[in-house]
């Protein structure tokens, strides 16, 4: 890796200040993605600002009084601690499942909630500096478009980039309508919806999201959930653990008797961002929670998919995964 300057931040504002002062600096959180990319010469920061010693790792209830309310995940909370936290397990089981479906126990023990959202794509052309890749080197071309694109996007891609976002956690967060809290040098706090936070590649695939350099993620806010009784995270992968999703689905149902009063479906492994399956959601709202309806909604959602040479299977697999996640959400706990 290239030589770099290492600083250990003492406070969040000082970390932000340091970060803003140098366009080539990066935040070091768990380091499970950033350090790998540096060893591969993909990321070449001049300075690392280590924030792991800052005391921002809590999982806090936002409730005031008895009313059901949301939860705040501090950015430096570890993935494993978040997944195993009682509040998360009881109120947001799909989030707990999604985190635990990702990476390995050792990596989850290091990985932070903020870092997880900002992990970069696993596209192999992105990782190999000898290959063309618009995300790594804008203008160099997309190696995957005409290449080995089995793991790549079927929704929302552009000719410039067909990569997928690799996070499992982010898929559940998208389904839960979570918001990303970001702070900048001026001390401004922004609260971004997932739609505002993540991007499709368009003409600028080098940008994974809409943060500006100097923005620090301080936390993730989860609104009160009505899906705890009926939710499920389904992940289909090439081996039973420690593999990125071919397709994954976070599903939540809110039921009124047999009727679906509210529903959330988000997909991983299919787009440059966690993909909210809005077509499926719309179709299901107000309908009866039956397997036939789940399948029809899944089919409708995947009808818009545009696959590449090696990932045509994701259409059928996506349909199956949506139906499976919804069925398992329906039967959750029973």
């Amino acid at each position: 890796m290239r030589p770099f300057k290492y600083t250990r931040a003492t406070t969040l504002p000082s970390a932000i200040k340091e970060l803003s002062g140098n366009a080539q600096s990066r935040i070091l959180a768990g380091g499970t993605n950033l350090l790998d990319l540096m060893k591969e010469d993909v990321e070449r920061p001049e300075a690392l600002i280590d924030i792991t010693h800052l005391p921002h790792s809590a999982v806090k209830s936002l409730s005031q009084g008895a009313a059901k309310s949301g939860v705040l995940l501090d950015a430096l909370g570890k993935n494993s601690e978040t997944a195993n936290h009682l509040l998360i397990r009881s109120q947001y089981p799909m989030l707990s499942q999604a985190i635990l479906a990702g990476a390995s126990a050792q990596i989850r023990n290091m990985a932070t909630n903020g870092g997880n959202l900002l992990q970069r794509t696993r596209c192999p052309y992105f990782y190999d500096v000898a290959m063309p890749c618009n995300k790594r080197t804008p203008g160099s071309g997309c190696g995957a478009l005409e290449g080995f694109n089995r793991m790549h996007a079927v929704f929302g891609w552009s000719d410039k980039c067909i990569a997928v976002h690799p996070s499992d956690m982010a898929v559940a967060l998208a389904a839960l309508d979570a918001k990303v809290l970001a702070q900048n040098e001026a001390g401004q706090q922004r609260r971004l919806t997932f739609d505002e936070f993540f991007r499709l590649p368009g003409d600028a695939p080098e940008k994974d999201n809409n943060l500006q350099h100097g923005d620090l993620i301080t936390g993730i806010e989860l609104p009160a959930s009505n899906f705890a009784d009926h939710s499920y995270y389904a992940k289909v992968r090439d081996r039973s653990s420690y593999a990125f999703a071919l397709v994954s689905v976070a599903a939540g149902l809110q039921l009124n008797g047999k009727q679906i009063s509210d529903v959330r479906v988000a997909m991983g492994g299919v787009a440059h961002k966690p993909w909210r399956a809005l077509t499926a959601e719309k179709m299901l709202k107000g309908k009866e929670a039956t397997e036939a309806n789940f399948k029809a909604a899944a089919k409708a959602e995947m009808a818009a998919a545009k696959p590449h040479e090696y990932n045509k299977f994701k259409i059928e697999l996506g349909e199956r995964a949506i139906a499976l996640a919804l069925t398992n959400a329906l039967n959750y706990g029973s």
Partner: protein
Amino acid sequence: MEANQITGTPLNRIDGLLKVTGKAAYATDYPVKNLAYGYLFKSTVASGTITQIDDAVAKKAPGVITIITHLNAPKLNVKGGLRGGALLQGPEIKFNGQHIGIVVAETFEQARYAARLIKVQYSGDAQAKTDFEKLATQAVPAKEPEVRRGDVDSAMASAAVTVDEVYETPIEHHHPMEPHATIASWEGDKLTLYNSSQIVNGAQTSAAKTLNIAPENVRIITPYIGGGFGSKGGQWANLALAAVAAKMANRPVHLALSRQQMFNSVGLRQHNIQHLKLAATKEGKLLALGHQTTTHTAIDDEYTEPCGDCSKVLYAVPNALINYKVVPMNIIMPTYTRGPGKSTGSFALESAMDELAFKLQMDPIALRLANEPAQDPTTGKPWSSRKLVECLKEGAKAFGWHKRNPQPGKNIQGDYLIGHGVACGSYPARQRDSSAVIKLTNDNGKVQATVELAAADLGTGTYTILAQTAADGLGLPVAQVQIKIGDSDLPPAAGSVGSVGATSYANSVNDACSKITTELMMKSGKQFFVRPTAAQLMASERLSSFETRMDAKPLADADNYSAHSFNANFAEVWVNRHTGMVKVKRFLAVTAAGKILNPKTARSQIIGGNVWGIGMALTEESVIDPRWGNFITRSFADYHVPVNLDVGNLEAIFINEDDKHANKLGVKGIGEVGIVGVAGAIANAIFNATGKRVRELPITPDKLI
């Protein structure tokens, strides 16, 4: 000598404590003083010529000692026995990832950083051969000998039932836990190479020849090895380049490959397209077997995995054609990879047998039993011993085969389709020349032995089985036997390759024990009614020390027999009917491999092979992008080995076998047979579970939905 019989007992590895406490020194663990670090850099094109190397900036980078490329590298002997070329002898590029230089620096990080500052230009070669799917049609007959008897095509034309299918297996990598690693250190003309080597003397001679120096000036030290699986059998360019770097830096140099570099530095298991033909009578008697393998090799050297080997020995069949076609490509040279040819070849053969059984509506075990050959069907030689029938029968009983539903897709539990499959395998049993020295000492009646030979322990238990063999052979407790191996200064020994290690080493130690006992008896000048042990003689004759050397050879008539280990593998798979994800719930390998020297280390060998076989069946695949000839799978995040959750309960059973012909000890070798037949058993179980016949490995979820 039968008296204590430590051989055959499940003794714990005698080197186990050293390993789990981190005290066992692997190649680059040696505390060599004044060490510098090398980092290899590699071509990013598959073919062409280097036109320019700009290392001006790199030379000035912090810590850099020297940069070596073809422009300043010494002349080496490219035919010295190192595999795969890439010795920095010229500007020609033969594959993507070919070594094109080394940076030597004070630290590893500095060397790697400087390597990235080097700019290389190539004149491209539009003719780069990188697309196997396209080039396969241009393959020509390979050097691997053909087997031909009778006429397969006429038998196919007239037979009651036939199978005629193509099976495909992808590129796989060895990926031992310890990547290839060397410390090279010169003292005058003398070169010491601390290097991970499966064949100690082979590494010595190939390094010496390549470097154009005398073998006695090269010493290989490799007491512990973190796996090899064939990739550390024949050595690769990195061994000689470490020595070159040390010479040019005038310092000892540490040169280790990164995991990424392991993909294109040390060979691979090649991509095979296997065309199988089977013809049989209505009763299931085989009439014909055709097995044609089409594969790729290096652009300037040939190696083909012998995929037809199991087809040569497993079944009695009057008409057979087993042959190979190969196409040279701009991809690194393929090489021996655990169970070379047999693991991938048995997948094709045993899948085809399962397809045949299904067409015949016959039990797959019954089909195999109906075609058991009385002698080797290819050579006509008698078997040294063969207990495949026992493997199948005992396995069926232990596995509960009779409970299997022969109709595919009918065994459903909740979300899962359950299936059971069987497949057989074989691996040749051979003994190679191997020497050993035994040194006995007697300290006031306490007799101790040191056994010395240039053997290699890949982590499999060589130390332990040799200590057991020597303890029995000398009449000593294991604790009084010291094993010294992994050093080319010791007596020359066979290598730990091709499942010859245990057989050759153990026979040489056993022979050396007999020899030293006989010599001690003669020295005593006494007559004995009962043959005493060497330990007893040392004590009774009050000798303070005594030693002998044995140069052991295979049995004189070993070649008159066909000697193989055999196995029968049984798999139970659970296939998720929504997602296509497969779990191997249980796997049973029943192996007949002659005398088992240590059931515990033997079991580890077998289940280790099984796990890799599960990887072959379900997860492992390397992909090359034909536009550049580079690996798209380039880390363990993309190249999937199975994880614990993929692997259910593994059980290994050994069939008792007393082989009098293979070698004196009746040991047949188990290093490779454990992976043979595994992928076939799993693919057959998946067919039984789902009704889907997948002929292309690995069987990932997308192939089952």
